[in-house]
Each structure stands twice: as structure tokens, then as C-alpha cells.
């Protein structure tokens, strides 16, 4: 006996095997990201007053990235639809754009990450808090381009107030001997940054994985279109479903991390 319904749908379920598989897999992905979103909520409601940073991320850049991903979801559908009616060239063009969008997204995200790794907070021994971009750092002193913060109501609130009035800050030099603690806005900075990096990092991995699969089907795996076209179209559909999910996750991530 051979395994049935590899290509054609089963009558009573109306689905072929891989489609059942991808839906189940996506259900588990919902639980994975759901758990991380729940963690975000618990950490946020548990944070001390004034310590949960908001508006720390660059909204215009985030918006651009959102548009990039949404466009890629459109091209995925257009590509699949074109393939369904036998227009392989259009399919290839659309999916190429999808893959390029994925690369653009990852590129922009890396720029944002990089920015956070150069953003520092310094606490001096006499309790002052400085916040800004690292200009230079050596044995003697640290130079930041930023603000001094009023941390009396919480550090995060202080950062927000300092940068509210369109004030871009100035260069501040802090002597190395005066520094009690210095760290960048990496994952260990506070729980907001931790969950930010975890959520976007995991999402980023999904983007990369999805793009690799789509690219594989598009180029090295395209031979199947000649030998077994129906199965090939199914593959495109299944990878497209995954891509929509990846897109959907970002639609949640963007408001939660950038806007709220």
C-alpha cells in the first residue's frame, strides 16, 4: 500500500495531508507565541511603577517594516494564484519579491538591533543616571550623546520625559571612576528589553526559515513543477500559509512592542 492523499484531498476532510500538517503545526506555533505574549503581559503588569519603558523603539522604522511584511504577504498570494492558473513566470516574479521583502525586513531589524546595542545607560556612584548613544569609551571615561535623567519616578519614565520635548541631547562625559554601572540596551538591560529581543528574535528566525523554504521551492526545488505540478502547487500553498502566520505574528508584535 502507498500513502494516500499526498497530493489530492481526502473526500471527507477536503484536505491533503500536508495541509493538515501545516495547520496543526501553526496551532502549536500559536501556543508558542501565545506563551510569550502572556509572559509579556505578566512581566508588564508586574513591573514597578515607572520602570516599564514605552516608546523606546523607533515607530517610523517599525511602520516601514510592517509595510514590508504586509506587501510580502500580498505577493505570496498573487504568486500562488498565478501558479494555480499556470503562469509560472508571474509566480516566480511575485515570490522573488517575497524573498526580497524578507531580506529587507531582516536588514531593517538588524539595524534596529544594532542601534539598541549602542544605546547605553550609565549610573554613577552618586546616583545620577545618564542615557544616550555611545560616542566613545576608553579606560578614562565614557562619552554619551544623550541626557541626564531624573530617575526619581522610575528610570524608564525619566528617559521618556527627557526625550519628550524634541530635545536631542548633548555630549556628556562621565569619568570611569565615577561609574557604578554601565550597560547597553541589550536583552539583559531590563525585562522589557528581554522580552523584546526574545519575541522579535524568535519571529526573526521564523522569517528567515520561511524565506529559505520559499526560496528553496522557488529555485532549486522548481524541477518538481515539471514532474509533479500538483504537488508543487501544494508546496507553494503550504509555505504560503506559514508565511501568512509569520506576518500575522508581526501584526501583533508591532503594536505591542512599538506603540503600547
Amino acid at each position, binding site marked *: 500500500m502507498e500513502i494516500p492523499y499526498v497530493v489530492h484531498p481526502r473526500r471527507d476532510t477536503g484536505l491533503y*495531508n500536508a495541509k*493538515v500538517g501545516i495547520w496543526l503545526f501553526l496551532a502549536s506555533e500559536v501556543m508558542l507565541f501565545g506563551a510569550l505574549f502572556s509572559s509579556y503581559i505578566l512581566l508588564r503588569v508586574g513591573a514597578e511603577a515607572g520602570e516599564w519603558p514605552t516608546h523606546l523603539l523607533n515607530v517610523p522604522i517599525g511602520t516601514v517594516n510592517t509595510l514590508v511584511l504586509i506587501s510580502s504577504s500580498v505577493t505570496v498570494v498573487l504568486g500562488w494564484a498565478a501558479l494555480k492558473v499556470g503562469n509560472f513566470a508571474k509566480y516566480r516574479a511575485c515570490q522573488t519579491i517575497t524573498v526580497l521583502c524578507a531580506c529587507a525586513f531582516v536588514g531593517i531589524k538588524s539595524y534596529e538591533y544594532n542601534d539598541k546595542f549602542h544605546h547605553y545607560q550609565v549610573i554613577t556612584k552618586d546616583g545620577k543616571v545618564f542615557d544616550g548613544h555611545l560616542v566613545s569609551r576608553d579606560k578614562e571615561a565614557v562619552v554619551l550623546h544623550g541626557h541626564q535623567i531624573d530617575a526619581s519616578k522610575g528610570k524608564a519614565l525619566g528617559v521618556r520625559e527627557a526625550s519628550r520635548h524634541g530635545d536631542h541631547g548633548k555630549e556628556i562625559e562621565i569619568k570611569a571612576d565615577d561609574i557604578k554601572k554601565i550597560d547597553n540596551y541589550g536583552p539583559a538591560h531590563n525585562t522589557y528589553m528581554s522580552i523584546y529581543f526574545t519575541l522579535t528574535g524568535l519571529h526573526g528566525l521564523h522569517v528567515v526559515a520561511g524565506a529559505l523554504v520559499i526560496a528553496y521551492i522557488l529555485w532549486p526545488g522548481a524541477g518538481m513543477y515539471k514532474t509533479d505540478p500538483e504537488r508543487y502547487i501544494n508546496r507553494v500553498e503550504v509555505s504560503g500559509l506559514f508565511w501568512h502566520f509569520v506576518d500575522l505574528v508581526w501584526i501583533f508584535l508591532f503594536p505591542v512592542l512599538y506603540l503600547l
Partner: protein
Amino acid sequence: MHTTTADTHHAGAHEAHHDEGGFLKKYVFSSDHKVIGIQYGLTALVFLFFGFCLIMAMRWQIAYPNTPIPLVGGLLNGLFGDLATKGIMSPDLYNMFGAMHGTIMVFLAIVPLAFGAFGNLIVPLQIGAPDMAFPRINMVSYQCYAAGGVVMLVSFLIPGGAAQAGWTSYSPLASTIPGDGQTFWLVGMVLLITSSLLGAVNFIATIIQLRAPGMTWMRMPFFVWAQFVTGFLLLLAFPPLEAAGLMQLADKVLHTSFFLPTGLAVGGNLANISGGGSPLLWQHLFWFLGHPEVYVLILPAMGIVSEIVANNTRKPLWGYKSLVYSSLGIGFISFIVWAHHMYLTGMGTKISTFFQTTTMIISIPSVIILTCLFISLWGGSIRFNTPMLFALAFLPMFGIGGLTGLPLGFNYSDIHLHDTYYVIAHFHYVVAPGTIFGLLAGVYYWYPKVTGRFMSETLGKIHFWLSLICMNLIFMPMFLQGMAGMLRRMSDGGAMYSVAKVGAIGGLSAAIIKLNEFVSHAAWMLALAQLPFIINFFWSISNGRKVTSDNPWDATTLEWQTPTPPPHGNFTKTPEVVRGPYDYSLPGAPKDFVPQNQTT
């Protein structure tokens, strides 16, 4: 379809000869569900044995604290150096063994055996499918499992040794113990979770898509239903633990503070972390998996027991539909009871009350299942073969385990019982003489299908009776110890809290502590009681009594309507299912059983 067994054996041997260099492809990198099932089964049995060895060493330390362990003390000293000086088990080593005992038993032994082995072997056969829906993913699933197992084993030998924070790995403890044991544990868990995720997708898709013509949902054997629900539990409950695992890994490696609160002190000094995290978050995420996981442990065993009970009472199962709906009910409700493991964390009474209520509700379907199985026995002419003995013993043992769960489910009584040996006794009754007996029943029952030979009944019965007695001698006294207030996870068996040390009020009496010795001896006896099984298992492969037909137990389900052992692709022609799974003693039928694909 009905090739004689001798023939297929011969053909099998022939093929192996011709298939040059095919050994790897046939037995190691096979995508055939039966081979993968056997791989899962053998690996899981080895881990079961290994996990048992860990606890046998610990039981010495509990019974005779701070004395050298006989027989293996020298070995432990050699392997672990300072952690077992002169063969005496240090508290660190005790914690390590304890954490790994739990982890190995749950994630590397029972689940792979119940789901990976029996599910893989039997489910496609019982629904009349040629294989799993995604055979290659199935193979990768086993490989991830094996890799996870290797990571766990290797962690014993790294500097600092394996994880020490219990199978539940509560933070901040788990994140602050020095050494890389916990990191290995987390990496191992991610691999194991990936494995069961792939398995779950595969099982569910197989059951939805590959049922043979006529195999409607309500004609599926109950075992298939049990695996179906188990698949969903694994699919949906494990990802949150994966998320939690990633966060704990970040705490460990990137120095984040997901689970580490502000002001955390380690070794008397303020930890150099940002703080702001929540230890309770870990517990919620862990038990969100943890509770469904206990049903992952029990449901497949219930499925196996149901098959064997129907077969050996020669009667249809009583209340097949109730069994199906109850297992579905368990599946749903098991996602909303998790915090009954956390009553003592100060979640607040409102939340506790909610979880107490759901816990009581989920007991109902469990009771229904047990009752159906008991009633199924009524009026049957029972065949007392070894599989049936294990299946019968499962019923009261699971009953004891389940009933003793109720006092734990009420938060008022749990305040007293939490974290004591009572809890240990509760869950071991469900998992050891419960699930493990169910799994052993399955081994004895399906062995002839895989090998073409029976296991020895005499050795089987010795194995059964000794195991039954030892299991009860081990776990029954633990209820007493727990109610007397003996806490779990203490490397001196409670000596620190004896009457001699803390006085008559609140101290553990000498009699209660003395029970430790009794229990330990029973545990070592249980090990001896497994010898007949191990001998039987290997000896019968080539010396057992040969089966004389493809259906030696006169069973109705489809796995017996194949050649023995089933060839690649399972069925010689697609079976047409025409009836329910348990048509035993059908009035007017020529024999006392009618297979699912036969029209009387």
C-alpha cells in the same frame, strides 16, 4: 493477505541478505513506522532502566544517610569525584540524580514508550493505514529524541554535573546554581519538545487523513482515540514550556531576568542582574505543560488497557462512547487545571478556588473511564494471561492514584500535603503501577505481532506478581510518611527533622523514618523482579512459542489482520472496515470474534 508466518519470516531473512549495506537504511535511518516504533521502544526501555538505577542509588542515601553505597559506591566516586567521596552520595549528587530521575522517567522513558513506541507501532495498523502521513518527519522525530537523550546523558559528565533543580526546574534556583547542567537540561528539553511536536503533528494528521475506507470516527479502537487526544495535548501544551525554556536559557546565558525578581540575593550577595522578573511566571508556564503532561502519561496506558480488556473478556467494551467523550473531556479540561500545583505560592484564594473547581471537574471523566473498564469485566469469561493480569492490575492501581489526587486538588488539604511524600506516592501510583503496568501489558500483548513469537507466560506471571507486590510495598508507606509531614527532595531521608533533632512537636517519629529502609529494600526487590522480564524479552525473540496464526489472541482490531510481522506498507490490500472495533461474542457469528474488516 493471510501469508503464513513462517513464509514471511523466510522472506524477511531473504531480503536482508540481498540488501547490501542496507542495514543502516533499514534499521537506523528507516522511515517505516514500525521500525521507528521499535527504535523508540528500545531506547525508552533503556532510559526507563537507567532512570530506575538513579533512584536505586538515591534510595540508599535516603535509607542509610551518609554511608558508602555498596556495589556502586566506587563507581560513583570514580565518575563524580568529590560529589561521591568514598562512595557516599553528597547532597549535590542527590539533587542531580533526583532531577534527572524525574526528567528521564517522564520525558525520555514513559512518554516515548507510550506515545512514540506504541503509538507508532500500533496506530497506523489499527486504522488500516500503510504508514504515518509524514514518514520522514517521523524519522526526524526519533532522531531529535535520541539527540535530546544524548545531551541529557552527557550533562552528567560535564564539570559541575547535570541539572540539580528538580524535573520542574523552578527558577530562581535553576538559574542560579553554578555550572552548565541546567543549560544542558534546557537544550536537551528543546530537542525533546521538538521531537514530540513533530510526532504530535504526524499522529494527528495520520488519524485524520489515513483511516481506511469505512473506518469512521466511532469505529476507531479506543487506543487510537487515546493517542489522538494525547497528540493534541503534546501539540498545544509543550510550546509554552518551550517558550519558558528559551527564557530560562536566556536568563542563564544572556543574563536576562525573566524569572529573577528584583533584589535577588545569591549566596548572601545581591545578584548582578536587572531584576524585575517573576518566578511565578516560570511555574505557570511549566505547569501549563505539566498538567496536560500527566494525561499524556496516562491516556495511552488507558488505551492499551482497554484493548486488552476487551480482547480478554471476549466482550465489547462497556460504554465505548463514554470512554471516547471522557477522553476528549479530559483533553480540554486538562488545559485549565494547572495551577493546582501552585496552591502554596500565594496566588490568592480566588484563583485557587477556580483551579480547585476545575480540578474536581476533571476527576469526573477519569472516574467514568475507570468505571467503564470495571463494568466491562462484569460477566466476561476472562482469560488470565500475562497482558490481562497487568491490565487488570492497572485498574485498582490507577484508582488509588486518582483518588489520592482529590485531597491534593482541594487547596485546604493540599496546604498540609504539598511537597511531601504523599504527593510522591500519589503520582507514582498513577505512573508506576498505573502507566508502567499498562505499558508492560502492551509489550506482552503486541510482542507476538512484532516478533511472531509469544513471551513466556511463566516468566511473565512471575514478573507480574513480584512487580505488583513490590510496587505497593514501595509506594503505600509513602502515603503515611507524607501525611506525617515528611518532605520530598531531602537528601537525608528526613533525619534533619526527626524527633531527636527538632523535638516531639513537628518532628518525624523514628517509626516513620524507619519506613525509609523498608521502602528502599522493596525498591531493590522491584529491580530483581524485572529480571524475569528482561530475560523473557530477549529469550523469546528466538525461543518463544511460535504463533500459529496472524491473529493469535483472536482479536478484532486491524493490526491483527496483517501478515506477521507486517511488511513495509502494512496491508497487502487496503482493508475495508465494516464494523465497530469490539465485535466479540456477536450472537450468530461463527466464532466469538469478528474482525473489523469481515462481514461475519
